[in-house]
Each structure stands twice: as structure tokens, then as C-alpha cells.
């Protein structure tokens, strides 16, 4: 089952990201679990499983796992669902002694699209970082933005930050 890393730690896979102490994990819930209810109820089966493994300490709504404050974030939009499906498999070498672990991380284009949708100051900074570091595939990004109805928000972001809209530059070149 795909449970990719999202948020600031996922951004670290591509750019130098902001200060954080939590690890976001995007998860898909069964339709029966997705009805309106508190997140603790929604995540109940997962939290029960983690408790059986000895992880039951919480920091607000994050659960402490091996020193990380892990926040499970249910898929809450078509963009999230697609981001989860397209998450990139990675082999993370912890250190030479411990070897590697296989995990999945959201692709950069979905991190940028999600940042644009949330659109706080730190999200706009994150988008600029991804563009400056050429850490996104512009064609893929423009397609994702277009298909998820984020084209207007993207044009507004480009105007506000004074950058040439890479989607328009691409289409006119």
C-alpha cells in the first residue's frame, strides 16, 4: 500500500526545506472511513496497529515514532489522490551500518501544486525554491495545475511574485 511522505520532509528530497519537526504521511482511507468524523476516529485502525507496535505517545495529533512526530494526513482531494498514486519510490540510505529503506515521496510537481492550493507565505516560499532550484518538470507541473483547476491561482502567484509564468513561456516558445 502506498503511504508516501508529504510536506516539508518530502520537500527536503528536492530542495533545502524549512524548519519542521513533523513527518507528514499521506494515506488513502476506505470510502466507509472517509465520512465526516474526527481525524482520531478516521485514523483509529491505523493508530490501533501502531499502538500494538509500541507507539502510543502523541504530540497534539501527531504520533511519536522513533523520534519523529508523524502526522497521517488522509487524502482529501483529487489532487491528493493523484499525488499519492504518482508518488516516487526512493531508496533512502540511513547510514552504511543500517543500510537502506524503501519508501515513497510525493513528486515535486505535486508538492508545488499542493503548496499553491494551501497558499500561505511559507508555501509560496517553497514554490519559489522549487522553481529557483529547477526541481520541477515544468511540463508536468503545468499539466497538473491545469487539470486540478489551479491555473488562475498559478497566474496570480506568478504576477504577485513577479516571475515569468513558466507555463506560458513554455507554450509560446
Amino acid at each position: 500500500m502506498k503511504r508516501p511522505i508529504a510536506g516539508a520532509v518530502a520537500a527536503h528530497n528536492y530542495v533545502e526545506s524549512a524548519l519542521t519537526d513533523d513527518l507528514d504521511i499521506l494515506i488513502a482511507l476506505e470510502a466507509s472511513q472517509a465520512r465526516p468524523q474526527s481525524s482520531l476516529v478516521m485514523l483509529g485502525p491505523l493508530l490501533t496497529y501502531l499502538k500494538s507496535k509500541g507507539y502510543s505517545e502523541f504530540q497534539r495529533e501527531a504520533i511519536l515514532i522513533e523520534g519523529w512526530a508523524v502526522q497521517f494526513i488522509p487524502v482529501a482531494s483529487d489532487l491528493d489522490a493523484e499525488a499519492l498514486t504518482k508518488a516516487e519510490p526512493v531508496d533512502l540510505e540511513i547510514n552504511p551500518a543500517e543500510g537502506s529503506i524503501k519508501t515513497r515521496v510525493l513528486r515535486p510537481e505535486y508538492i508545488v501544486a499542493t503548496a499553491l492550493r494551501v497558499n500561505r507565505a511559507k508555501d509560496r516560499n517553497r514554490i519559489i525554491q522549487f522553481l529557483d532550484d529547477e526541481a520541477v518538470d515544468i511540463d508536468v507541473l503545468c499539466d497538473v495545475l491545469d487539470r486540478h483547476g489551479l491555473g488562475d491561482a498559478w497566474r496570480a502567484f506568478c504576477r504577485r511574485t513577479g516571475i515569468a509564468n513558466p507555463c506560458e513561456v513554455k507554450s509560446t516558445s
Partner: protein
Amino acid sequence: MKQPETVYPDISDILKAKAERRRDIARRSFGEKIAMMEALRERVAPFKRLREQRRAAKRASASDNAP
């Protein structure tokens, strides 16, 4: 036939808790924030190594394709 619309859960309480965590972090002392950064640096080192490997491969590919 029209596909039924997907029902997504309301995650506003999770997002609210995350915002509160961020405010908690912002209220920490400078020393605590430095300690947090040090701990974070260690934890995300595997991601940084991957990122640098990817960039090195991209640079190598660009120089191979240079005229």
C-alpha cells in the same frame, strides 16, 4: 453514466492541529530552534544525499549533452 463524485474526509481538525504545532515551534527560544535544526539536519541527511546524487546526475547528463 456519470461517475459518482468521490467523497473525501474533512481533515480540518488535522490541519488546525498542524497550525498549532507550527505556532508552538515559533514560540520556542532561539536555542531550542537551533537544537531543532541540528536534529532535523541529522534526520533529513538521507534525503539530502539523494538530492545531491540526483543533481550530480543531472549535471553530468547536461555536460554529456553539451555541444
